[in-house]
């Protein structure tokens, strides 16, 4: 067996999942869907985090009751070996899509604002390779690197928000409920697809984080941290730009850094902050890719995770490239993913949890962790 899990502590697990969820929620939002009909993102984003945490709680409780050691065991327990594998494939695709979303958005940002002369595939090839390294080295590498960089990444995001603070105007958040409560609820549900994959990733790697209970605690911490950070970003973005403007920006956070107060050296900090963000993107993509490879390896009894990591990294790079292709088909596909991606992200795990829970509590080693 070469599943490259190793063992990491709660802090490392929390940091890895929080970075992945935070990067997805801050940088990969579908801005057009989120803002075109008004800005309620500063309310819908924390609601999305709460919904994701609720779904995570339901799944993890069932895993504890049924003594499932990881997500794959829950899927096969709840849905049986055949449908469990189908559900595992869907979850794998969701994780890979989350990784591709990160790489795609960062390559777009880098291509538009930093390297306008470079083609997108060149930047993507570079980013995919950077995401491949942590995924190849496994959970321990990802967890410890995340713990090492978490403060730098926090400074990179909070620093940007702080330096742009002179331009915040609360009236730009008005009308305060966006397009109404219905739209806000819809956005909250849709955007669970930004938070839930990272929490699901934690359930895949439970063995490496000392069991389901430890994964649960790390998941709570990660969900809350990512929710608070992304909500803060949404409030600050909403106070800087009107919803009309935000709906037309693919990378509002980068636009924020191009808007620091004139004078001194602050205006030139955008590239340095971008470095921190890109680090979070590659680490997050590495975490997603590793979790996808591990789930796949467990579902299909693969002894060695490395071929899956290599193949999935290539798939992530290809999907990210596809996200840059503007055809009617890719646009329609993107719209479907944006609208219904949350179903693919949450339904397999929740369905398996519901069906497994009906079987009652499994006696014996329930609740025991490694």
């Amino acid at each position, binding site marked *: 067996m070469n599943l490259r899990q190793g063992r990491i502590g709660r802090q490392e697990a929390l940091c890895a999942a929080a970075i992945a969820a935070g990067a997805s929620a801050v940088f990969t939002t579908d801005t057009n869907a989120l803002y075109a009909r008004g800005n309620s993102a500063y309310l819908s984003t924390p609601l999305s985090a709460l919904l994701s945490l609720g779904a995570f709680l339901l799944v993890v409780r069932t895993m504890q009751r049924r003594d499932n050691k990881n997500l794959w065991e829950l899927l096969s327990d709840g849905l049986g070996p055949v449908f469990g594998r189908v559900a595992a494939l869907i979850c794998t695709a969701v994780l890979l899509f989350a990784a591709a979303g990160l790489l795609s958005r960062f390559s777009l940002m880098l291509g538009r604002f930093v390297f306008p002369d470079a083609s997108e595939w060149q930047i993507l090839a570079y980013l995919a390779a950077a995401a491949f390294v942590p995924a190849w080295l496994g959970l321990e*590498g990802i967890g410890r690197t995340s713990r090492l960089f978490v403060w730098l990444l926090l400074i990179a995001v909070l620093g940007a928000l702080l330096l742009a603070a002179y*331009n915040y105007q609360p009236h730009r958040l008005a009308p305060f409920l966006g397009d109404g409560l219905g739209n806000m609820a819809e956005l909250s549900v849709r955007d669970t697809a930004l938070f839930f994959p990272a929490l699901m990733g934690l359930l895949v790697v439970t063995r490496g984080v000392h069991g389901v209970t430890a994964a649960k605690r790390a998941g709570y911490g990660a969900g809350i941290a990512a929710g608070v950070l992304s909500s803060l970003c949404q409030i600050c973005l909403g106070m800087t730009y009107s919803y009309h403007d935000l709906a037309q920006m693919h990378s509002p956070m980068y636009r924020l850094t191009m808007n620091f107060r004139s004078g001194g050296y602050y205006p030139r900090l955008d590239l340095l902050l971008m470095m921190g963000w890109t680090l979070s993107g590659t680490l997050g993509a590495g975490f997603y890719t590793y979790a996808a490879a591990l789930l796949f390896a467990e579902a299909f009894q693969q002894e060695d995770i490395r071929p899956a990591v290599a193949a999935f990294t290539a798939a992530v790079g290809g999907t990210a490239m596809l996200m840059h292709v503007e055809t009617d088909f890719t646009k329609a596909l993107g719209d479907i993913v944006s609208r219904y991606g949350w179903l693919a992200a949450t339904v397999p795990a929740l369905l398996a949890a519901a069906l497994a829970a009906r079987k009652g509590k499994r006696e014996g080693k329930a609740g025991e962790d490694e």
Partner: protein
Amino acid sequence: MRGRHIRLAALLCAAVLALSGCMGARSPDEYGYALVIGIDRGKTKPFYISMLLQRGNGSSQSSEDSLCTMAGVECSDLFEAVELLEGGLPYSLSMARVTAIVFGEEAARGKLLEQFLSASLGSLHIRYYANLIVARGRAEDYLDGLLSELNPNVAKLQYNFIEYKEETGMIPGITLTQFYDRAWNQTGDVVLPLGGFEGEKSNGEGGGNKSTQQQTGNGRPENTAEPSDSGGAGKEEPAKAPPITDALSASDYLPGQTNRQGGLPAGMIGCALFKGTRLMGYLNGPHTQLLLMGRGEFNRGRIQLTSANGEPVSVMLASKGNPAVTLTLGDTPAAKIKLSLYASVEQPAAASSIDKEELRRAIAGYVENGMAAVFAACQSLGCDSFNLGEHAVTQFTDTKAWEAFDFEAEYKKMDASFDVSIFLKYNPTGSRVE
């Protein structure tokens, strides 16, 4: 194991650093930086875009080539301008240090400004804190007026500009971000600082389109022909629009109207009133102060009053917080703007001879009446220059209702009242030295 993680961390840092653009194949001195961009109507193409270019940092120790250069070209858009200008420059052109974008009067009153700003300026690395200015006449003349031995480092212009705004209130300050925020939304209209060439080279009459010409530093054009007197771009139009004038018919405290000797040939005072993306009118310096007070953008500035015996009295006003705006929408829309200001009379001897209450009333009266006059002028032009729209939008909870609401119609019939409280600075001895 520990070494493996350190190696991984180092590898990631190196990879990401290279992606940050901090390291590049070219060193910074291989670039020429555009510091100010001027936008005018072109003669054969939509735009005539001029730029002040600088290599190095413009310090006195720098070599000759660090002085500012002006270059301009007829083009379809800014992207084409960069391409065409680079063909005639001994270095690569970078837009990353643009501090100001100047619109000529004709460009600002037509569709050119909107056309120019609808391009993705970020992809040219233009940062969104760049300040915007409207020049009376042509922008290229204004840029020409910035070239001087007095001003070897044009990059510092932006700091002086912000400082001048903060210290006098005679001009507003606006960045690209703020322009985008206001111009395409209904939450208020932008006001831009008003610049001009003190010599009134072209005075809005089309100016001289010095296509693809270049000038070197110190304000001396290489070609000796007068740049702006020979007619140009705007003259081709069959029907000439009437010139933009001061909204309150003031004739002083406007660029080109001050009796100033020396200094830069280009100057700034007053503001340009916009409705959406269109230039509608001007306000002179003192009226701009009053407008900024109403907008909550006034920091400090001096006003001139006349005492009962006809002597001038200078009063330094300073902001005491943002104005409180109460907006009532409906059949009889009304706005009430309540404002508090600190005041100190700069001729203490004159001040001591006037009753304090009377002085307070005189200052408050000047500000209230002035703001009412400025409001009426802006309202007649259809410009929501007091940003009342931003208070209106907060009365709506959902976008559909706000977008269905016709604020423009409501604004046209709005009554505004102003309530100004003055707090005189304490000077019990009437001392001349404070």
